[in-house]
C-alpha cells in the first residue's frame, strides 16, 4: 500500500478528531461541573447558571467542530 498524501490524511484524520474530542470532553466536563457546583450553592440562580453554561459549552464545542470541518475543507 503506497503511503501518499491522501492515504496519510485519511489515516490521521480520525486520530485528530479523537484528540479534539478528548480536549472538548475535558473542557466541557470542567464547565458543567462548575455549573453544577454553582447550582448546588445557590439553587435559585439555576436558570441563569444554565444559560451561561450552555453558552460556554457552545464555545468549547466549536473547537471540536473546527477539527471536523477541516475534513471538508481539505477534501
Amino acid at each position, binding site marked *: 500500500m503506497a503511503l501518499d498524501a491522501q492515504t496519510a490524511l485519511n489515516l490521521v484524520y480520525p486520530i485528530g478528531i479523537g484528540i479534539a474530542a478528548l480536549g472538548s470532553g475535558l473542557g466541557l466536563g470542567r464547565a458543567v461541573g462548575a455549573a453544577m457546583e454553582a447550582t448546588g450553592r445557590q439553587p435559585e440562580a439555576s436558570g441563569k447558571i444554565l444559560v451561561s453554561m450552555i453558552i460556554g459549552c457552545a464555545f468549547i464545542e466549536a473547537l471540536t*467542530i*473546527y477539527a471536523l470541518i477541516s475534513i471538508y475543507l481539505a477534501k
Partner: protein
Amino acid sequence: MAETTTLGAGAEGHAAAAVETATVAHVENAAATTHAASQGHGSGPPEIPSGLDLLASLPFARREFYPFDLTTINPRTGESRTVQVRFTLAEAIHNYQNQFFALLLVAMTAVVLGRRMKRASLARPSRFQALVEMFVETFRDLVCGVLGEKNGRRYLPYVGSLFLFILLSNLMGIVPFLRSPTSVYQTTFALAICTFLYVQFTAVRRNGLLRYLFHMAGEPKGEGLFMTAFMWVIGIVLLLPLHILGELIKPISLSLRLFGNILGEDILLGVFAMFGLSLVGLLGFEQPWVGFPLQVPFFFLALLTSGVQAMVFALLSMVYFLMVLPHS
C-alpha cells in the same frame, strides 16, 4: 454512489414518513438524478435532499440550456481553444438552492411582518403582536444588559435581526422539504463579515482611527523617553499585528462555529435517515423508498443546537461591540 442513490430514495422515505405521498417514477428520477448530480461535483457528506433537489430531479431539469462553444484566442500567439459550455438546470438549482432558501426566508418574514405591522395597535394587541413584542422585549433586555441602555438601543436592531435570521435559518433544516441556508459556508461567512465590518466601522467612528490603532498597539505609554520609545516599538512590532490577527480571526471563528454546527446537524439527520432506510432493507422488505424515521429523535437535538448557535452568534456580536465601544 450507492449511498447517494438510496439517499435520493431517502427523500421519499423521509417524505413518506411525514407526508405519505410518493410515486415510484418520482423515486427513480430522484435516485437517478441525485446519482448524476453527485457525479458533477463529487460525493459530499450525506444530507437529506430538499424540495429543490427533488425539483432538479424532474425530467425538465436535465435538459441542457443552450449549449454553446466558447472560443478563446490568445492574442500573442494566435492559438485558439474551444470549450463546450453546457450546463443543466439541475446543476444550477443544486448550486444555488441555499441562497434560494435564504431569500425565501427573508421574503416570507418581510411579507408577514410587514403586513401585520400595519395593523399593530397599542390598545388591543393581537396574539401575533403580543408574541413578537415578547420576543423583542426579552432580547432588548438582554442587549441592554450587555451593552448598556443607550448603546443597547442603538445596536438592538442589528443584533436582533441577526439572531432571528440565524434562528429561523437553522430551524429550516428540520422542516421536511427545506434546507437551512446556514448549512453552507457562504451564508455564515456573509453574516460574520457583516458583523465584522459593522464592528470595525463602529470602532473607527466612535474612537477615531488613530485612537483605535493606538488601542490596538497596546496603548504604549512609558515613564521616560526610553521607556516610551521601547513601548512604542513593542506595541507596533508585536502587539499591533497580534491584535489585527485577533480581529481578523473573529469572523472566521464565528462563521465556522455556526457552519460546523448546523452542517453537522444536517449530516446527522441525513445519516440517520439513511440508516432508517437500510434498516428496512435489512428486515427484508422490498420497497426501498419507505424507511423508519430514525432521525426524529434527533430533531430535538437539532432544535437545541439551532437555538444555542443563534444565541451564541448574537451574543458574541454583542460582546465584540462592547469591546470596541468606549468604556464609560
